[in-house]
């Protein structure tokens, strides 16, 4: 486990070093090429700003309106007998919509219920094994104009829910 922590903290350094050395060995003007990439990056960030702003404001409003808490409450009444991990419900709701909120929610859950409890483990697993579906779809289709993206969103959402079951299953299997 020490190795994993070492690897994750130094992975970026190794990757950057490796790429640069590779470039030098192939006799490329590494800095010049790097600059070209950075300029592309600048344009990219600027062109993505509208998507980010629009999306995050909408998600922020959704969060502040209290509707998510409301839905979780209602859903819990229905699911009380089937789904025993009540604390995780808000996370399941938020994960596909907002990455940062889901992270904050996950931390909150682990603080309240303990990191190494069953709920803490499932929470960590859900956080690590899926992406923010709505965000990813909005981001990658933002420059494509009008297209029907409903199927992709539905596929992503089904996968997010499946991920919850796989996470619980992983715990039951005893591999974490």
């Amino acid at each position, binding site marked *: 486990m020490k190795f994993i922590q070492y690897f994750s903290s130094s992975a970026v350094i190794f990757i950057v070093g490796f790429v640069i050395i590779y470039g030098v060995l192939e006799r490329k003007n590494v800095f010049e090429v790097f600059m070209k990439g950075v300029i592309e990056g600048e344009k990219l960030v600027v062109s993505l700003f509208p998507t980010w702003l629009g999306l995050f404001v909408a998600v922020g409003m959704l969060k502040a309106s209290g509707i998510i808490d409301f839905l979780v409450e209602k859903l819990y009444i229905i699911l009380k007998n089937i789904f025993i991990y009540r604390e995780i419900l808000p996370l399941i709701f938020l994960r596909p919509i907002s990455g940062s909120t889901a992270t904050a929610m996950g931390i909150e859950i682990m603080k309240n219920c303990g990191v190494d409890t069953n709920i803490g483990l499932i929470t960590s697993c859900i956080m690590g094994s899926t992406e923010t579906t709505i965000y990813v779809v909005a981001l990658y289709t933002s420059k*494509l104009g009008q297209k029907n993206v409903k199927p992709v969103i539905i596929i992503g959402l089904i996968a997010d829910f499946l991920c919850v079951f796989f996470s619980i299953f992983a715990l039951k299997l005893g591999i974490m």
Partner: protein
Amino acid sequence: MINKIWCFFIIISVIFSILNGNLETLNQSIFSSITDTTQMVINLFGSMCFWCGIIKIISETSLQEKLKKIINPINKRIFKNLDENGKAYKNISVNMVTNMLGIGNAATPAGLKAVEELEKINPDKHKLSDEMVMFIAINTASLQIIPTNVIAIRNSLNSANPSGIIMGVWFSSIMTFISIIILTKIYLKLRRKR
């Protein structure tokens, strides 16, 4: 669709806030979201540009070919009809490898380029091509070798074993990834029949 979702989010928030009587919170959230987003973009700006630079070096050396080869056994099966030497395929490879390494900020630019290239060879501009659906769907899953963020969070919360979840995350993310591929294949088959 994103159009509708966006409007839906805002309209439902406003209506619910009026019913709930917490318009003040909603009001504040708009301004704090704007500030937060701007702050996030500033924080992201440097890192995004930096990774774009590194990716540019990868794409101008033979490293891109090497990355392509690493991921090829999986990619060839997922993107059967895509030209292996095309730009789209190469960018998809870079996107997947950087995603696996957990550098999301590097994966995004490569991913956007891949979508752009896919659009160029898209026969019907009114809809997403099969490859686009597959590629975007895959990106909604997270295939990370080391889930660094979660480990860091668990560490900060004084977990007895921060990286103990790694097998669970592998299992769950690989299963999710496979389900996405199956779901997408089913959807694409249905779409072709129609």
